[in-house]
């Protein structure tokens, strides 16, 4: 489904990704862990097409398409979804209006007729129930004045509405208390299926107790320095990142 090879990217003159290789197959959940500043969020942003980052080398293939050639909205239409670490507040645009526009633009991309108001509302009610988000919240301006937990839940709700084939969660656990974390994880787990893959970017193992990954990769200084299964996450929780850093630094030295 997703094939990243030797991906390099920088912001201004700073190299951040220095050759990432990653294969994600349908239905798999990959966790990307790593110390702060290792490039985890950059990888998530580059996959979603954020212009701040310049791709300087490598390739990304997504369902047979050259992902790097596509505009962010085309990537979304092709099935990529990024849950933001810091969801943006957009005053004056309600979540409902925002999502209706998004869904109908994606339908247009695929040559389908737009959903009418009734169809859209039905879909929305259904999905709001599955991720336990309050209807009233969706009638307000997008994320404006939402608590941290509400913002993250809104991300998961948007994911449920857009039904991506590859969802990238960028530190979705940051700033959440355990109850909010459980609700968010539950929402994600409900969306797991044999056709849908996830890349879960996180600093801590905590989230992975609830969203159990098939693979865990450790990103350090812009490279994946170690890959394993969910046990690797537990090991990191126990021992911290220092041993990985030492291992990686001795190899590159």
């Amino acid at each position, binding site marked *: 489904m997703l094939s990243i090879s030797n991906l390099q990217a920088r912001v201004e003159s700073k190299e951040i990704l220095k050759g990432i290789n990653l294969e994600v197959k349908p239905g798999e959940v990959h966790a990307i862990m790593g110390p702060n500043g290792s490039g985890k969020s950059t990888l998530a942003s580059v996959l979603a097409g954020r212009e701040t980052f310049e791709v300087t080398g490598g390739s990304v293939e997504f369902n047979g398409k050259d992902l790097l050639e596509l505009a962010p909205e085309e990537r979304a239409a092709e099935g990529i979804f990024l849950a*933001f670490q810091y969801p943006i507040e957009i005053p004056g645009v309600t979540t409902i209006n925002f*999502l209706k526009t998004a869904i109908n633009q994606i339908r247009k991309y695929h040559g389908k007729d737009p959903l009418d108001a009734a169809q859209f509302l039905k879909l929305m009610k259904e999905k709001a129930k599955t991720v336990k988000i309050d209807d009233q919240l969706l009638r307000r301006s997008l994320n404006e004045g939402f608590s941290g937990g509400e913002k993250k839940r809104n991300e998961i709700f948007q994911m449920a509405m857009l039904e991506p084939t590859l969802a990238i969660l960028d530190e979705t656990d940051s700033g959440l208390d355990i109850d909010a974390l459980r609700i968010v994880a539950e929402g994600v787990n409900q969306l797991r299926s044999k056709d849908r893959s996830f890349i879960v970017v996180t600093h801590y193992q905590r989230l992975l107790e609830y969203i159990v990954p098939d693979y865990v990769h450790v990103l350090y200084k812009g490279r994946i320095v170690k890959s394993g299964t969910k046990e690797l996450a537990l090991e990191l929780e126990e021992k911290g990142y220092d041993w990985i850093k030492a291992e990686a630094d001795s190899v590159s030295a």
Partner: protein
Amino acid sequence: MSILTKIEGEFDSLLHHLNGKSGLAWNRLREEAFENFKKLGIPTVKHEDWKYSSLKGLEKYDYTLSSASSLSREEVAELPFADLEGLQLVFVNGNFSAELSSPLLNEKIKVLDFKEAEKLIPEVLNEYYGKGLDVEKEGLSALNVALSREGAVIHVPDHTTLEEPVVIRHIHATGQEHIRNSVHHLAVIGKNSEAKIVEIFQNIGENSSFTNIATEIFLSEDARADYYKIQDENDASFHVGTTQVLQKDRSYFYAATFTVNGGFVRNNLNLVLDGEHIESHMYGLYIPNGSQHVDNHTLVDHQKPNSESNELYKGILDGRSKGVFNGKIFVRQDAQKTNAYQNCRNVILSETAGMNTKPQLEIWADDVKCSHGTTTGKLDDDAIFYMQSRGIPKAEAIRLQLAAFAEDVVSQIKWEALREPLDILILKKLQA
């Protein structure tokens, strides 16, 4: 011939036409105003209030004053807002057109054109014409008072509601000539009475129009008025307009100014709050692009205690356009317990557009609540990326955000029928 020489000739001919009525108070005021105009002239950037707005471009055109033009009903009906419900008064090149207008209202409530008003209610003109305007300092106000014999005169007696909105349409037929016009509207709303007025400015044709307009609104005790100004003039047009409002105790005034298009626009909105427990609202939206220039000067003069004014202006500037906002708030020593709020927010879409904002608060009272704020910024790139990442193309994301930005002002419109044609006009402009 220079514009000033022309104007002198026009004034002489006006005096001649007034035959015999020149002794009436409002006509005596014309002569006084004209003397002032001769001293003041057309303002230049040397005037503090005109620092960022130059009328030099006027010299490029050889204007004809209020040239009569016969527009057909069909031509007028094709313009936006043609179907707007209400008493329609149509002015073509500054001349009232009875044929294109609704029948005038000459009952208890009067909605007349200026010349009918001179015959039927001279006492109203005597008492109010030109009284609110600063003809001693503002050259173009002085010129307007001196020259205008066209306009709408609205008189609503006490305890009366003018049910139908008054729709004043100014159509500049600039297909052949460059047109100058001088129009003066007067609305006198009696005690506990109510009216709704909209002024619309449009061009048919691409030549220049120079509109010098004054609208005076007098609100008696407990009176209420909603006032809308919608500008959709061409890129060669010049528009200098003053809306002058005098409010008495417990009156309510609401103004919304939408500048969608216009080459050079200067709007003065002056509110004098001569009473207690007055409520005043001022909203504005301007969306210039290309080389359009939009200047909004507002003044709220709190003269007595316990009143409230609230102001929100928003601008979206693209191309090489320039915007100016100058918001004066005076709180006189007597005006304790005044609440006055002012806010001006702008989004700049190009490197070459520019905005000058100047809030000017002068407060002599000590127990007041006043706040003001201005911001000028770019669109939020993060927000655009966020929308794109959900499948919304960039152009649509920008449009959604701009529409949301404008919504704060547009949503304040209380007249549903006005919203639809205005929304279409704004959307069309934002898509350009």
